[in-house]
């Protein structure tokens, strides 16, 4: 017997179903009852009940791509903050190969890097690597932080949402699995993207979001164009 409906908001400890059901992510089983462990939205698929969290911390997983900030330069590695309870390390051998060079010249404290999680061991040591397409250091741009659980929503089905944002604003947008988003383009467009991302984060649990974001983009960008036209008009008047 299922006691809740799809997409209901539930709280920790709430009983979701009783009887022959599987406890999916965000839930746990107490004897025959399936209970929620989180604040989130119910997702029912056949006999499996899960809860999609509305807020979470990033837990590193092998193969994820993440955006991180260098916090410390050590003798043969960098310490990286990856917006998670576990900090990452980037070994120097990964950057230089065999030869040793000046660490500070490659990456310094405060640099923003796009990396892949190479390995997470039992003691939660997170090894990062730079081998792969598009991985490396970011120059300039803007960092936006969102809750990691909302990353799939920002990307959309097969990248529909993120591609729409890129097309409309002509910005480069890179999303890390850890909830950090790097944006680079015209400064005013960067700000538009930041606003759009914050809206997506706030409304991630509602449906029909892609259409609303499209409207929002059209509206924001429409205004920008209007403004430019107005400015041109004003300049003509002055002349």
């Amino acid at each position, binding site marked *: 017997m299922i006691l809740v409906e799809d997409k*209901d908001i539930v709280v920790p400890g*709430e009983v979701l179903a009783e009887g022959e059901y599987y406890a999916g992510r965000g839930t746990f089983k107490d004897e025959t009852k399936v209970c929620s462990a*989180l*604040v989130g939205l119910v997702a029912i698929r056949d006999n499996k009940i899960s809860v999609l969290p509305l*807020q979470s*911390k990033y837990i590193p997983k092998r193969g994820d791509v993440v955006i991180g900030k260098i916090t410390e330069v050590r003798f043969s590695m960098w310490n990286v903050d990856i917006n998670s309870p576990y900090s990452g390390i980037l070994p120097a051998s990964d950057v230089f190969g065999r030869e040793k060079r000046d660490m500070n010249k490659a990456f310094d404290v405060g640099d923003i890097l796009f990396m892949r999680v190479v390995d997470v061991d039992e003691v939660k040591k997170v090894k990062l690597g730079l081998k792969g397409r598009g991985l490396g250091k970011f120059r300039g741009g803007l960092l936006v932080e969102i809750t990691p659980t909302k990353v799939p929503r920002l990307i959309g089905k097969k990248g529909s949402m993120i591609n729409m944002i890129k097309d409309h604003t002509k910005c480069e947008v890179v999303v890390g699995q850890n909830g950090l988003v790097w944006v680079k383009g015209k400064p005013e467009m960067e700000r538009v993207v930041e606003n759009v991302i914050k809206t997506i984060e706030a409304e991630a*649990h509602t449906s029909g979001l892609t259409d609303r974001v499209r409207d929002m983009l059209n509206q924001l960008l429409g205004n920008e164009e209007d403004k430019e036209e107005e400015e041109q008009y004003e300049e003509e008047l002055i002349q």
Partner: protein
Amino acid sequence: MITIITNRDLEAKNSERPDGRAYNELRPLKIEAGVLERADGSAYLEFGDNKVLAAVYGPREFHIRRFLKPNMAVLRCRYNMAPFSVEDRKRPGPDRRSLEISKLTSEALSPAVFLEKFPRSSIDVFIEVLQAEGGTRCAGITAASVALADAGIPMRDMVVACAAGKANGQVIMDLSEWEDKEGEADVPVAIMPRTGEITLLQMDGQLTKDEFEQALDLAKEGCMKISEEQKKAIKNRYGGD
């Protein structure tokens, strides 16, 4: 001499509580989740004249090697009373009482949290009492568990706390400051409402076995009522239903 007769007195004739409440009546309660921007999760709670703010950070990296647990997270609590929270100024900083309450809050919340999901990390809970009027440890635990849920930390249940006790020879629910100080006994209780498991049970004063059982039942009844408000607070944060 002026005597004021109210309807309430006629209804509950054995009510001799100074604020006119019935023996099983709570003080007015208000909970709001997600009030602080910087914290991962937060809650503000008003319970009678108590005003409590709770903030949760984490799970986050834990640097103190001595306390780190390789197989689970560590839940740390800090209960603090503002100097202006009580009638005479409270000397700021931790004292014996707030250290005790910090420890017991952490022990009351820990059984509900899936600590094993975040090994080698820490979850930090901060409880600030802005105004106190009896039952701040219960208010603190109730607020902290809303803040934990708001932070997205997986839990078996939302812990809720309520006190019961005895004043003027009557067993009553949710003692006010006056009843706490002048009364015969105070029994704060924290439970996990789904299973009814007790995570905190203290007693200050003297009760007979029967009275103690009555008080425990009353406290549990109060917890159930408060639990509903906790759930509402979380659901309201996300538009509610």
